[in-house]
């Protein structure tokens, strides 16, 4: 032990509250270190002084006060056997607690996973269409390659995570309501109020030709643009 580690142990060493091993190591260090020995003596003196100052040691409860306190306890304490029964973990209690825990966990899982993701994807899908196509009947001509509009389209495709797959024909756009009815496919999330037009873009890798299909909010095909 060193003069860095011993001082932390001195408060407990002063009252004899260290384990045998630590007490032995502290004692060995104290023999050779005057500073730590002086510090230990200071702790012991402080404890002795505190005990001297303790005014309660010589006092006791007088007989009259004691008898009165005990009588009062017995009179006002009620019937002691009527205490609260000990809590027992019964199987029914455990089962109910388990069910409640599972229900809470499921609720938390649903609340944490659902609310944000579909909305974000939906907004990303419609963002490019809203800016490029203001109405269903009015279609803008295809921007020339290399122009600012062409760059916007490419940027929009980057924002949309499924767009490249959709463009490459690897995944299909969401089925129309009739198709859903026939196939029993799950209905898509309800569109946001701002979404009037949905587009699907197909890009040819060989020629660079782009074909954009437009659908209304009911996913009815409205036209195409090359």
């Amino acid at each position, binding site marked *: 032990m060193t003069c860095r580690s011993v001082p932390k142990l001195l*408060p407990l060493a002063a*009252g004899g509250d260290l384990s045998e091993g630590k007490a032995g190591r502290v004692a060995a260090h104290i023999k050779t270190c005057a500073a730590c020995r002086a510090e230990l003596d200071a702790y012991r003196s402080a404890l002795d002084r505190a005990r001297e100052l303790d*005014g309660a040691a010589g*006092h006791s*409860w*007088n007989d009259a006060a004691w008898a009165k306190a*005990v009588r009062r306890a*017995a009179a006002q304490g009620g019937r002691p056997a009527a*205490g609260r029964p000990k809590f027992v973990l019964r199987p029914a209690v455990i089962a109910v607690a388990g069910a409640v825990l599972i229900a809470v966990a499921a609720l938390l899982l649903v609340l944490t996973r659902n609310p944000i993701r579909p909305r974000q994807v939906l907004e990303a899908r419609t963002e490019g269409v809203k800016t490029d196509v203001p109405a269903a009947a009015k279609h803008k001509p295809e921007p020339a390659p290399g122009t600012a509009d062409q760059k916007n389209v490419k940027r929009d495709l980057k924002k949309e995570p499924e767009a490249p797959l959709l463009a490459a024909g690897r995944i299909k756009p969401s089925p129309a309501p009739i198709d859903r009815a026939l196939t029993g496919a799950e209905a898509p999330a309800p569109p946001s109020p701002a979404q009037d037009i949905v587009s699907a873009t197909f890009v040819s890798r060989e020629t660079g030709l782009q074909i954009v299909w437009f659908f209304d909010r009911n996913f009815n095909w409205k036209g195409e643009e090359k």
Partner: protein
Amino acid sequence: MNEQETTLVEMVLAGNSDAFEPLVRPYRNDLIRLAYRMTGDWEDANEASQEALLRAYRYLARFDTARSFKNWLLGILVNEARKSFRKKPRSLSLAETAEPSTPADQERRHEDGVLRDRLRACLSELSRNQREVFILRDLEDRNIRETARILGASEVAVRVHLSRARKKIKDLMTRDAAPGKETTS
């Protein structure tokens, strides 16, 4: 818990309230002294002790006879003393309801009061946990395990609080004893 205490507990639980006094009598002075050390006032100590006795009687059915009755009783007292400590701001009253009030004791009582105030000033510098551990271990001379049982804490926590309390007390005592500093005695 010894056999005699077990028998007395059973008698009280069976409805014999007279068995309560011999059950708690061995701890009569322990109760009042610990209460005084924790509250710093004899009136509060008396009140806390009476309340502890009342609760001990009322909730005796909850007591686990496999454990120490003394530690259980003192644990109740500690809770009552805490309540009393929270309720009242500390005063330096010398009223001592637990001690016979005779004129011969006046001088000694005054000296005791001064000394007591010095210790109380030191104890008031400690946190609640440190103060309770210091009182039980160093003033009441209970061991670490007993202290932990009474306070409902772990032995490790008791050691931590005790170490900090002793360091603070040492610093305060050293400061008081330093030349050029005024002391209260």
